[in-house]
């Protein structure tokens, strides 16, 4: 549905988007993840024909964003980060204006407006001035505008930014319910968002795609060979020696005193091996109390930081994903 090839956008000497490529299948929800200033908004603006790309191509539903912008715009519903709304218009009037410029035929307008108002739960504010609405409602008016013409593609730039937790949950539910029917690209710098809503994630940093996978796989990938945390009652010294001798352990780091006579270790295991049973047997067999044994799964949050936080000293952005890539290839 959406195909982006080698997209580059330069502002003078600054490169905001640098050779970004990805594609989105019909009905998919793609999460576009990156820190602020990573180039998410710029990429989305190119896709919505708001900005021209410096290089590369982007196609939406088979239409080139540069060659046939009107065809592309007809198929896209878009909300920028701050929804563009006319504060002095009433919600229903605003949507009526949008329905006209979106080319919805006159006889369908009322029905489509009512549908959008219902879906985004705006019924009780439909005759209020947009300027008097709270941030959450405004975001929903923006969303109502985007889904009004029932477009094939929805592009949502930080749709939950600035909402309260309840509104965030509601918005996520709404977005999820829109998937399948619509192809959605959703940008965010809030990680749980993609974990909850998206089928696939593209992580972008400094204008480059640094990782692309399902949220589960990304977590898996960086979990790597599976670091474990072992907590046992006893002295650090003997336990260290004990754990070191367990076959398959390739790395061992004491993590200090966990309180109540318990010491903790981080254990790196050989690729593909689950050492939990062996470790448990070793600790208990040596007469220590095993208090805790868990996999050190990385949250998307940590992955994100690991991938996007690069040594600015040598600016080695591609290194992090390379490191992330390695365990995955081994595992498969």
């Amino acid at each position, binding site marked *: 549905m959406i195909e982006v090839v080698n997209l580059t956008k330069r502002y003078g000497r600054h490169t905001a988007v640098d050779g970004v490529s990805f594609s989105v299948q019909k009905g998919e929800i793609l999460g576009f993840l990156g820190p602020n200033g990573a180039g998410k908004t710029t990429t989305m603006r190119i896709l*919505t*024909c*708001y*900005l*021209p790309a410096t290089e590369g191509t982007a196609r939406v539903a088979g239409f080139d964003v540069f060659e046939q912008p*009107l065809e592309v*715009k*007809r198929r*896209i519903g*878009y909300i*920028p980060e*701050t929804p*563009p*709304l*006319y*504060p*002095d*218009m009433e919600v229903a*009037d605003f949507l009526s*204006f*949008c329905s*006209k*410029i*979106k*080319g919805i035929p006159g006889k369908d307008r009322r029905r489509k407006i009512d549908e959008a108002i219902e879906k985004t739960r705006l019924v009780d504010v439909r005759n209020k001035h947009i300027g008097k609405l709270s941030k959450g409602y405004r975001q929903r008016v923006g969303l109502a*505008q985007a889904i009004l013409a029932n477009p094939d593609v929805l592009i949502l730039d930080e749709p939950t930014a600035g909402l309260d937790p309840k509104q965030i949950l509601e918005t996520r539910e709404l977005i999820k319910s829109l998937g399948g029917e619509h192809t959605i690209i959703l940008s965010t710098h809030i990680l749980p968002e993609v974990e909850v809503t998206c089928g696939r994630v593209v992580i972008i940093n400094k204008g480059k795609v640094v990782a692309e996978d399902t949220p589960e796989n990304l977590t898996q990938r960086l979990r790597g060979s599976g670091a474990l945390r072992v907590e046992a009652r006893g002295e650090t010294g003997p336990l260290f020696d004990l754990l070191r001798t367990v076959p398959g352990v390739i790395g061992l780091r004491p993590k200090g005193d966990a309180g109540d006579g318990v010491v903790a270790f981080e254990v790196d295991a050989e690729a593909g091996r689950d050492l939990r049973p062996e470790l448990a047997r070793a600790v208990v067999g040596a007469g220590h109390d095993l208090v805790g044994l868990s996999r050190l799964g990385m949250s998307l949050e940590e992955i994100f930081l690991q991938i996007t936080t690069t040594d600015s000293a040598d600016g080695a952005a591609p290194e992090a994903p390379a490191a992330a890539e390695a365990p995955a290839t081994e595992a498969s």
Partner: protein
Amino acid sequence: MSSLRNVSAIVEKEWRHYFGSPIAYVLLFVWTFLFGRFFQVAFEYFLLASARQGGMEMGMGPKMSLNEWVLRPLFQNMAVVALFVIPMLTMRLFAEEKRQGTIELLSTNPLTDWQVVLGKFFAATGLFGFMILVSLVNFVPLWVYATTAPDWKPVATGVLALLLYGASLIAVGTFISTLTRNQIVAGILSFCAFLALLTLGWADDPAAGPLQQAIAYLSVTAHMEDMTKGVLDLKDVVFYLSFSGFGLFLAQQSVESQRWRA
């Protein structure tokens, strides 16, 4: 068909804005008040002068013309008033969309830049036309009370002149509004531009060189001259239409180019 619908959607939105805020009412008030006042002053002067003339010459002198004494000064005064009023109509057209970020709404929906520019231009010109229409009430007494009804044609050409002249200024104002996101800046710049266009006419001097005459030709006020006297010259109509077209072309180019510079 669809482009017509898009343009009219923009026009409707702009009118909603004009009448949803005090702008339209304030401008209507100022315009109609000044129109009425200038009409009254010119008319009283006309009555006084014609009474005096009638007393002196026993009605034998050249007949005083209503066009020359009332309509011409009235329309020319209103042309000056328009210099102040039109920036207030046009300054927000694009500047506000840019500041509010709603320009992104317009440019990511299936609209062309031309449709947006034309929609805004027609909305402002329509409101200006409405202002003129309302102020025509002033002429009603002429037809009701004058013993011989005055000729309606000079009024019609005068109104047409004012409308065409206004449209030209609105086109320029629309263009200037695309240049900034600050309405006040757009308003001030438009006013300066209009004054500059007015002063161009002062360069008109039959003895002057061709360059100076060419400059004088561009004066938006000079082309009203004949029409306010009741003479409709196609040349002047074409001038105003092409002037407006050029302003709108600049506006469209400016909107489009900002995408590239963004």
